[in-house]
Structure formats: C-alpha cells, structure tokens
C-alpha cells in the first residue's frame, strides 16, 4: 500500500520494564503504569504527539505488552486512528533468520527501519514512554530546522546535586552540544537529556546500520549513537525545555509525581483545555461523596464512592472508600475497594484489590512508601516498601 510521505514521524520507546518500580511493573511495562488519577504514563507522550500535530507514531513494545496493547488499541483516544499514519504498535518479530528481541533502544528503531521508510520522513522524533511532561514537539522541530541541526536533544535543568543521576549535555554558548556524559561524577552542567531526540532520518539511518554492525555496541541511543555522532562532529543542538518533567522510575518518584498534582501551584497543569492529556476512558458515573465523607486536597475520578475521609490523595476511577476509613498521602489505583474502618497512609494501593475491614497500613517512616498488592494465587495481601522488601503478608480470610 502506498503511504503518504510525512515530514516527521515519532518513534515511542515503550518496551522498558522499569524494574525499580518493583510490584507496579510485575504485569505491565512501565509506560502502562497508572498515573494521576486517570492516566497511564504513556498518555503524556502520545497526547504530546497528537497535540503537536504529529499523527504518525510507532510504539515499540517488548516487556509485558498486554496492558499496553489494549490501552493503545487503534489510538482513538489520542485521535491517532488515522487512514494515513496513526499509531502502530511495533513488537519484536520473526524474520527469515529467526526471531530476536530488541537489544537496545537503537536496535529497536533499527529493526523497524522498514516502518519508517514507508513514510520516507525527513525527520524522526525519538521519544520515551516513561516520562511525565507536556511538550510541544513542533517547537522542537522548528528549532531543529532553524539550526540546520543533524540532531537536536531536548534538555532540562536539574538540581546540581542530582545531576550525577542523569545523562548530562555539555553545551557551547550557541546551545550546540560538545560533550555528553552519562551519570558524571563531577558534572560540568546541569542540563539533563529528557530522552527526546529529533534526527534527520537519512543520517540516523546510516548510524543505526553502522551501530548494528558494531558487535561491541550496546545498541543504545545514550551510550552509543549520540556519543558516536558527537565524535564525528555532527551539528547537534540542545533544546532547553522549561516546564514540568519527571522520570517516574521509582516507587517513590511515582508517588511524589502523583502528590505534585495535588499542589495548588503544580506546574503540570492538567486543566489547560488547549493541551489536554488524553487517555482511554472508563465508563463510570460521576463520583459520589456521601454525607459523612470529607475530601480535602485530593484528586478524584469518576465512579468513586467515598464514605470515609480522603486527604492529600489521588483516587483512580471506581475506587470505593468505606465508612470510617481514612486515606492519607496515598495513591489508590482503579477499582480498588477499601472497606470500612481501614486506615491507609503513604501507600500505593494496586488496582482491583480489596482491603478488608479494619486493616491498618500506616507508614511511620517518612522516607518509605508502601505498595499494597494482592497475590491472588496464594490468597494473601502483600505490602512492600519502596526497596522491594516485603514488610508484611496478610492471609486473606473470606
């Protein structure tokens, strides 16, 4: 089938496990993890594409793709169900030489060169499905064109003391990049790569082919492709992004990013009608707050029924909070049922689980977040801290 030529297409890397999210990514890839009372992490990148006018998006999946596949579907929530282009889920596949998994981020794109070539784009936007941010990629593209760059990397200022946790770009006065350092001990700048790149497809294509031939390469953008391009002296620029950006790679940062949304002055304004974040919608009536309930400083979604007390928390659709129950500083994922006389603090409660009457999950350690999950096979409820250590197992009696 003939495809219409596109100026730019996006390749969204969504195969990561997110192993530091422990329990949360046991059955789903990191981009499919729930966030913000309604969304999944990948919704931000997909909505950014749609809002930026990029309607051809390849989503590269690998780890636990079931939830992700059913979430993305044909892309209609993001207006990406297009006759020409639209969203395509690209999983590893079998070829004449057998099947192989994606070896790294660069290899994942390499394996799907056929997909990109079909649209013969001038530019390719490489994104990660792991981050929470709102960004207009069309501005990034303009900037890339204005500089006649071969590659442009979006960067964000991070606190100096945290700079050693990121891939850091060292730049000249004209924002051209002269050095890239992965997690430097002594950072020279505090501009961290956001995992958002624009490449000229012709050039990237060549680098991907060469990288694939190099047996010692880890086939990774940050570790191999970008350093190689810099070494070869290509014109590469940093695009400074000014706004909310968060890599929710750990249980704690996921919890924190949810809490950020509750703040009155949060930078990630979800209420801006000109830049909506789209997601697959649940079919639920409005939420109901009963006579005896109190809800303060919280985000609530449709289908919730609240009889107890909810304070400084985020409730996903369909959550039930029973009488005299108290929820504080917590994130409750979809359709969780919290019965009467339950106390929960500083926790993430997983979706579709029931917390029996009288359960108390209280976290006195200010640094720790408890992840409450259910092990259905063994009929127990598990509570883990953010280091993945099991704190307590409760045998469920029905």
């Amino acid at each position, binding site marked *: 089938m003939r495809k219409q030529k596109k100026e730019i297409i996006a390749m969204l890397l969504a195969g990561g496990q997110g192993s530091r999210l422990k329990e949360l990514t046991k059955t789903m890839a990191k981009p499919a993890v729930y966030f913000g009372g309604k969304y999944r992490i990948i919704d931000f990148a997909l909505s950014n594409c749609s809002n930026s006018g990029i309607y051809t998006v390849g989503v590269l999946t690998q780890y636990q793709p079931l939830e992700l596949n059913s979430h993305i579907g044909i892309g209609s929530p993001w207006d990406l169900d297009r006759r020409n282009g639209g969203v395509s889920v690209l999983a590893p596949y079998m070829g004449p030489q057998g099947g192989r998994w994606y070896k790294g981020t660069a290899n994942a794109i390499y394996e799907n060169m056929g997909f990109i070539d079909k649209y013969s784009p001038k530019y390719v936007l490489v994104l990660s499905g792991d981050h929470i941010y709102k960004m207009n990629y069309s501005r990034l593209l303009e900037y890339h064109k204005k500089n006649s760059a071969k590659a442009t990397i979006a960067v964000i200022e991070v606190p100096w003391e945290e700079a050693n946790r990121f891939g850091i770009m060292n730049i000249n006065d004209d924002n051209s990049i002269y050095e890239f350092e992965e997690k430097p001990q002594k950072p020279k700048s505090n501009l961290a790569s956001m995992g958002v790149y624009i490449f000229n497809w012709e050039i990237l294509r060549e680098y991907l082919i060469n990288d694939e031939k190099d047996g010692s390469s880890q086939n990774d953008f940050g570790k191999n492709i970008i350093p190689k391009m810099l070494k070869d002296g290509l014109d590469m620029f940093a695009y400074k992004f000014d706004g909310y950006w968060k890599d929710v790679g750990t249980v704690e940062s996921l919890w924190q990013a949810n809490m950020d949304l509750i703040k009155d002055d949060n930078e990630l304004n979800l209420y801006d009608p000109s830049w909506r974040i789209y997601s697959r919608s649940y079919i639920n009536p409005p939420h109901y707050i009963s006579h005896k309930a109190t809800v303060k400083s919280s985000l609530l979604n449709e289908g919730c029924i609240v009889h107890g007390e909810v304070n400084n928390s985020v*409730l996903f659709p369909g959550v039930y909070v029973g009488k005299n129950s108290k929820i504080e500083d917590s994130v409750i994922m979809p359709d969780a049922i919290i019965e009467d006389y339950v106390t929960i603090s500083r926790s993430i409660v997983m979706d579709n689980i029931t917390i029996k009457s009288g359960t108390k999950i209280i976290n006195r350690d200010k640094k720790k977040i408890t992840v409450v999950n259910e092990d259905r096979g063994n009929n127990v409820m598990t509570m883990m801290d953010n280091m993945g250590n099991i704190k307590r197992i409760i045998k469920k009696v029905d």
Partner: protein
Amino acid sequence: MKDIMGIINLIENEDRIKDLTHNRPIATIPILGRYRIIDFSLSNMVNAGIRNVGIYTRGKSQSLMDHLGTGKEWDLDRKIDGLFLLNPIIDFNNIKINKGDIESFRSHLNYLKSSRQRYVVISRSYMICNVDYVDAVNYHKETGADITIIYKKIEEDIDKFNDCDTLNLDKKENVISVGSNLGDKKSYNISMETYIMKKDLLLNIIQNSINKGDYEYLKQAVFNSMKNLHVNAYSYNGYLSCISSVENYYRTNMELLNVDLARQLFYEDRLVYTKVKDEPPTKYCQNTNVSNSLIANGCVIEGVVENSVIGRRVEISKGAVVKDSIIMQKSSIGENCYLENVILDKHVRISDGKILSGDKDYPFVIKKNMSL
C-alpha cells in the same frame, strides 16, 4: 438480538421543560453531571445488542449531532446498520403547522422498510431507566402478543409521573385500555412509552394512519389499532423517572444522590455510555467541604458543596456555597457566592458575592451562557 431494530422518538412535549430546551431537544439536556438524557435510552438499546437505531428528531438537532457524532461511544459506528439521525423533511409546498410525528415517520418510511430486522423497539428519550430489552423481547415472543408495552407499577410519589400514560391491565397483563395519570389513585401502571412489535405491524399502523389521515401522533395510531390486536404489558421494576418538566428534572437529579437508587441505574451489568470528554480528575482544594454530592470530572472545587450535582469542568471558588443545586458543565461560581435550589445551565458565570436562591418545588433556572 440481531433481529431487533431500535427507534427513539424525540418528538416529545417540551411545554413544561421549556427553560432547559432553548436550542436543544429534551434528549440533550445535560443530566447527572456527565450525561445527556438520550444516553439512557440509547444505552438500553445498545446493551440489548441492537445495532440499528433510528432517531426521529423535531429539528434542533445541532446539539444532538454534536453529542452523538457517528455513534462511536455507543459502538454504533458500524458498516452495516448503525445510527441514523432522521430529521424532519420540510416541504415548502405543503406546510402544515402542528403536524405530529406521523409525518416524520412518513418522510422516512424507506428507512423502516429497508431495515432488515423483524422486530422493533420504539422508545422515548425522557424516560430515564435501565431496562433489559433482551428479556422484554423474549417475553414479547413468549406471550405471542402483537404489541408489548413496557410499564412500571408506581405506588409512591405518583405526582412525579403526572400526565404520563397509564395502562389498565387484566390478570394476564393484557392491556384493556390506556389512560392518563391524574394523580388521584393510589397506584398506577405507568407506561414507559416503549413498545415492542413486529416491524411490519408498525409499518401497517403508520400506513393506515396516513391513508385515513385521522391521527397525527404515532401513539394515537397505536392506541387506536389496539382494539383489533393482542396487546400485552411487560413489567419493569428498576429505577424510573420521567423528565417531562423542570421540577421532575430537578427531582431526578436530587433523588439519584441516593447511592442505592443510583446503583440500579448505573452499576448493573448494563452500563450507561456517553460522549467522552477527556477531562482530568476533579481537584479538591485544602478548604473544601463536600457532602452528599455527585461530581463529574475536570472540576476545581474550593468552596462548599452540599446535596448537589456538579457537571464537568465546573469551578467553585473560595468561600462559595452551593446547596441543593444542579450546576451544568463549564459553569463557574465566583468567590463567596451562595446558591440554593438553583439550576445553572451550561457556561454560566456567576461573579463574586452573588446570592441566588429558588425553591425546592420551583428551582431557579439560569439559561445557558448567562453571566451574572
């Protein structure tokens, strides 16, 4: 249920609900925070597996088209059958005023004729309920009746169904006659104006009526033909409300604050679908105080909300108090306002410090797009 088609007849009496039907039919009045009235009858049909739905309108269909679109949210964007919006056809050579709905059916007779289904379910939009049409149609087939009318026996709050049709039934649930609810008896069999029959019979009734020219309304034609037909009734016992007046509209919203009643309508196996709006979750600020209220997505609530229904993307500012009220989508309420027994239509702006109050029996309605 491939063999059933659905008809939703929106040619409804709007006299007592005029305040809410400027530029919209009753079918698209926002209700319960995130729905439109038609969502309930349309979802009932879709939940029964009906895949061919014709909606007869009286014009004013802009808001209807905006809401229904291609029927995607109801899974009615089908290649075969799907959703059909049947607007009146105006023939300027032959304008008669006050023509009933028969004329609409006549204009679109071909739609009925060419539909392949054998049975038809005809309903209204203003009857809010969650009926299992699969069961009703099976009942219709079992009794061998020509027409089955769905009804609910009402023993409390009879005034909620004033002027609704009532059915006089014999012991075998056969319909003896159809009357009207004047509110003077202890119990009534309220007709939900939902009729099940063979499509061919419906065509017959319409064609006869056009031939004779004696009836303007389909309902009259059906009732008249009942003399020669076997008409049975199917009893429904879930939640029912009739949005025929502003008072009933208000009452329906308020009574569904009762979770047990709402459960009958929403938390059955049969879900209620509506247009998706992609609103973020609702945000409750530090000093809010909300109780006994239904609240849709996308709101920012800083004030006090009590016994109210709040639509999508409503802002309630600091110090504002909203009591026993219905606030439709995208309205905003300024600081230190006090609202009691009020219905705000869409996009209403209330500036700081206003005090508005109506009566429980006569809620104060503020029209769409007003700024006070």
